[in-house]
């Protein structure tokens, strides 16, 4: 029973991280029908910048929670900047091009960003400082859920709630929903579509960066390649829940996280990645609209 709870907890933690990244994929796809291949790299860059900031702060004598907060904040700001720039350079010029072009551009940017970090920093794994403090009150359940897990779950939940509030109740959120429904009409009623798209990218990047910071301190090490795998899995989660559907992304992420955790725990961890890819392939073949999505009929 305890093992089951452990696995569930670890599954939820995975799911939370996947959700943070998946939201970026699903929002961007919902609005411009583009799979932002480079999104995983934003997550990776968020983690790297947090590590760098934390490293510098530690050397200059800071300590404790302040490092976590500063590192997280700066990483998030930078991720937003990268997301914004990415859209402006690699996707905006291709807004009206056939679907293949932005996809290839996205793959190109993914490669570019990976190698940019590799060359600017290092190909090796870098050890990430443990920034999350241990909470005393977690002692009794420590064998199932530790402080780090709690922080991840809570932070993710807060972030997702904040996003939902933003989309549902603010002006910019309304503009985003309108643009997703019908870009031309939104433009005609005065929505600055370019800004809306930029905001979408920025929001997705912020969430991804939060995920990167959390994962970095949780796992303890990062390297330039973590974006790729995490990206594919998060994308799987987004598709599983129905691409373009925000609650779907969260649902899909949780399902995938739990499924992976149980598979690794009860069967074998070697084929873990195959599992994720397998799920992806199966969904796309059998039910491309995902769990919560609607099948879109092409007009002939």
């Amino acid at each position, binding site marked *: 029973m305890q093992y089951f709870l452990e696995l569930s907890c670890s599954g939820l933690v995975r799911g939370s991280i996947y959700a943070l990244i998946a939201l970026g994929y699903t929002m961007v796809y919902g609005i411009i029908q583009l799979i932002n291949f480079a999104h995983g790299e934003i997550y990776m860059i968020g983690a790297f910048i947090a590590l760098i900031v934390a490293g*510098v702060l530690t050397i200059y004598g800071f300590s404790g929670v302040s490092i976590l907060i500063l590192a997280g904040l700066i990483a998030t700001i930078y991720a937003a900047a990268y997301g914004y720039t990415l859209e402006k350079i690699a996707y905006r010029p291709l807004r009206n091009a056939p679907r293949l072009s932005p996809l*290839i551009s996205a793959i190109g940017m993914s490669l*570019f960003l990976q*190698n940019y970090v590799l060359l600017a920093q290092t190909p090796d794994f870098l050890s990430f400082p443990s920034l999350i403090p241990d909470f005393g009150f977690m002692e009794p359940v420590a064998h199932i859920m530790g402080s780090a897990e709690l922080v991840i779950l809570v932070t993710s939940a807060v972030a997702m709630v904040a996003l939902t509030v933003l989309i549902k109740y603010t002006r910019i959120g309304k503009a985003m929903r309108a643009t997703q429904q019908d870009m031309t009409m939104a433009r005609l009623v005065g929505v600055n579509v370019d800004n809306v798209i930029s905001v979408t990218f920025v929001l997705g990047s912020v969430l991804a960066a939060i995920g990167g910071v959390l994962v970095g301190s949780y796992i303890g090490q990062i390297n330039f390649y973590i974006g790729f795998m995490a990206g594919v899995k998060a994308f799987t989660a987004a598709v599983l829940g129905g691409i373009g559907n925000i609650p779907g992304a969260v649902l899909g992420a949780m399902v995938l996280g739990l499924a992976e955790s149980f598979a690794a725990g009860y069967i074998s961890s070697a084929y873990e990645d195959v599992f994720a890819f397998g799920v992806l392939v199966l969904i796309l073949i059998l039910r491309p609209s995902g769990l919560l999505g609607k099948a879109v009929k092409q007009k002939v």
Partner: protein
Amino acid sequence: MSDYMKRSFLVALWFVFLTFPLMVVKVNTLKNTVEWRWMNMLWVAIGAFVLSLLWRWALERRQLKNKEAESGEDESTRLGFGQRLLVEPKLYKPVLAVLFVATIAFPLLFDIYQTNIMVLALVFVVLGLGLNVTVGLAGLLDLGYVAFFAVGAYTYGILNSFWGIGFWTSLPIGGLMGALFGIALGFPILRLRGDYLAIVTLGFGSIAKIVIENWEEVTNGAKGIAGIPRPGFFGADMSITSATTYTYYLMILMVIFTIFITNRLKDSRIGRAWMALREDEIACVAMGVDMAKTKLGAYAFGAFWAGLVGVIFAARNTYINPNSFTFMESALVLSIVVMGGMGSIVGVIIAALVLILMPEYLRAFSEYRMLMFGAIMVLMMIFRPEGLIANVRRKYRGHKVMTEDVNA
């Protein structure tokens, strides 16, 4: 002009800010030290400034070009230099002659190391031509193409290590295995299009690599298969130099063979069906084309070629392991096809040679190779989506001479 300067200056500032943590700061978490690389900031500033100017200029040129195309100006009849090179015998005959001599003489002029590299480049030429059919002609975005390459290589490796089967027997088997996998993997994804297709094929490619890594009993896992014999010549004992030269000429023949076949396919009933499928699948099917058969044909054909050169690749290296068959390789071949111009045979050949040989010859830049690939892919899509050499469609000879009075 000064407006440009101002904008570019701001862009340079932005990029200095953006790249600051990664380019300037280097933290060593173990030793707890920080390295400040201020020179990098200067490079970024200058680079960003210059690139921003170029970017703005290039974007404006592109807008002009698009406006011209939209207003229907007669740009389509004026062929570019690359296209004229292909079409006018006065131009291409001498070029072909020079190429012919250079190709034959290559191994005699350069050492075995260079020849071996050239063999690798030629392998990727064939891979590019194969994927060119699937992606360029039929429009089926396959991001897992490397899987078929791996199938070919491991077919030879396994056949040889388990049953001692030689190169020449394994060659057609490798191709056939590739084709079979192409059909098997193509079947469940027939109804997928565009992005979804890309992701699923990406998944297939990754699954293939992971399976190879973990299926120890058959593939020897991450350790790979060693001692794979080079191509033999009627069982003669050849030195490494001779064997390499032999492989080189073999690849040259292979490339010519592939060009011949793909060229014939381009101007054929099935080639046109592939293109129509790419242009508008619904209309294509409505005109009587069997989608399943045609698509599977495209997958199988591309995969067959990958399998074929997979065998040769294994023979060239004499050792294979899963690390040669990653997403990077798929992306590389895709770059070759995109850069060459989808469907353009000559373009793909040039792109393959450039993308494989440049890093070898510009050793100083080799670590920037993948970085440049990424950048090239983005730039090509924005500024030259038609590729190095855009498609020149064939003119057919009918049995009638055009009569002016057909117009009422």
